[in-house]
């Protein structure tokens, strides 16, 4: 058949773009020639908005960035402010933060698993993954009263103590997840349709991934071991024993395996944190009106999607002069053209899903 280039629009209203993302595709029959991602449909001017709010008032708005892992955003921002203001957080508060952040990672990965399988065509996985995620959201509801936009971390500590009843409930939730995961693995791991749609699709080499700035599970699926929790520990992560799962081929299937293994490692971390929960205060003394002397800080954490960084510049008042956010989804999205080129048109959905992007974080 003669060469014929066709331009196609995917999105902004498309169920598999995970939000309002528009992809401009050039295809030759079934093969993708180029992909151009057009973003900005969900832009809310977050970074400018934060300049008009006090340091404390910003925290609930960071929930609205990556709304599938809102607590990780809270943690990233709060740690940056604490570094800027020189606030020492009590050890118990740091442990509770680890418990919550890892539960949030579980919830985010389980939601990803459901969406990704649903995009590729296995709908039962969506239902099973969401059932497991629901039990984690119930824990968040019991801890701080909200499920999705949690606002579960305050500057200087955490809002509530983690009592024995809640710890027992978290353990019960953790016991249930591996069983659900085994069901999902039985459905997907060897399934020939799943393997044909994922193995060898959307490959990226480790060098290219680093050059594109890819982070998080997508980078580790290429075999590059870089996890901020291990390499630049924050919030007492150096006190826990866990492995960093690595893939080999950097394709969609390896990203799936890496995320599944990360779920198991997160369960390990939460169990250790609950076992070794130290006694003490849950919050440091923080002045009600927090004024920070002129300085600047950049702090990064390992969010479920990748490396999340906050740059804050203070000017002596109770409001930040400038906040800039390094969002993992935005940077991971840039490599989508590299991954899609030469693949089939129908695999664009699977590749885009495997990057685990959230548009709230991309457009800010």
């Amino acid at each position: 058949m003669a060469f014929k280039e066709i331009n196609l629009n995917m999105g902004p209203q498309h169920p598999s773009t995970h939000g309002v993302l528009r992809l401009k595709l050039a295809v030759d029959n079934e093969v993708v020639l180029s992909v151009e991602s057009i973003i900005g449909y969900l832009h809310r001017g977050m970074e400018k908005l934060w300049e008009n709010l006090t340091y404390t008032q910003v925290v609930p708005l960071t929930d609205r960035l990556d709304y599938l892992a809102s607590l990780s955003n809270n943690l990233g921002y709060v740690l940056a402010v604490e570094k800027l203001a020189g606030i020492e957080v009590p050890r118990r508060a740091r442990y509770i933060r680890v418990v919550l952040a890892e539960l949030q990672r579980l919830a985010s990965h389980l939601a990803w698993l459901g969406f990704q399988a649903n995009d590729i065509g296995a709908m039962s996985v969506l239902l099973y993954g969401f059932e497991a995620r629901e039990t984690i959201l119930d824990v968040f509801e019991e801890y701080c009263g909200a499920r999705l936009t949690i606002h579960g971390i305050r500057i200087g500590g955490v809002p509530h103590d983690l009592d024995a009843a809640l710890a027992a409930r978290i353990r019960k939730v953790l016991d249930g997840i591996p069983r659900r995961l085994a069901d999902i693995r039985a459905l997907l791991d060897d399934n020939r349709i799943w393997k044909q749609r994922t193995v060898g699709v959307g490959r990226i080499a480790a060098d290219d991934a680093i050059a594109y700035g890819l982070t998080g599970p997508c980078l580790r699926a290429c075999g590059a071991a870089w996890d901020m929790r291990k390499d630049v520990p924050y919030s007492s992560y150096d006190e826990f024993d866990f492995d960093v799962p690595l893939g080999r081929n950097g394709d969609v299937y390896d990203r799936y395996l890496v995320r599944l293994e990360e779920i198991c490692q997160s369960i390990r971390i939460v169990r250790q944190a609950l076992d070794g929960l130290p006694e003490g205060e849950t919050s440091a003394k923080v002045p009600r009106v927090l004024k920070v002397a002129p300085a600047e800080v950049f702090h990064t954490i390992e969010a479920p999607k990748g490396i999340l960084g906050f740059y804050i510049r203070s000017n002596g008042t109770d409001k930040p002069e400038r906040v800039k956010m390094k969002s993992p989804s935005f940077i991971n999205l840039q490599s989508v053209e590299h991954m899609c080129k030469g693949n089939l048109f129908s695999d664009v959905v699977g590749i885009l899903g495997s990057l685990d992007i959230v548009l709230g974080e991309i457009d800010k």
Partner: protein
Amino acid sequence: MSRIGRFLKSFFLVDMLRGLAVTLRLYFSRKVTVQYPEQVQEPAERFRGIVRLYRDDKGEPLCIACKACQRACGTNCFDIEGKKEEGAKVMRPTKFDWKLDRCTFCGFCVEVCPTNAIRFSREFRLTGTDKDGLLFHLPDMYLAGEDLQSYLCAGCRRPR
């Protein structure tokens, strides 16, 4: 695994049957879906629903119109005016407007309140048929929460 083993596994659809066994087992497991309007799940103890004002045991309002919640709010939900009556010990609010459509349910107002007058209710039905219903005035603030259950939804505050 040998080539014959792989061929047999593939020929007899072992991977598919394993998956179908899971779906079949879970088909007969206990249902987890809550049929919402008929069945309502009770929110947790700390649930952050609509904020409401409380009175003390004698029926006196707890709010002293100090505007701490108004200052703490990041989204400007509150519009409060207070007045001290002749002979009264403390200020009382004469105007207490709260905008449901602006609230992010972050909880700063509840945390800063010195008299514990403003607290979260467990009311989660936030819809309304017109925008006016989303603006709560002083009497509505005492109504909000458990008393709202007699209404269809918090936003319109129309009887069922």
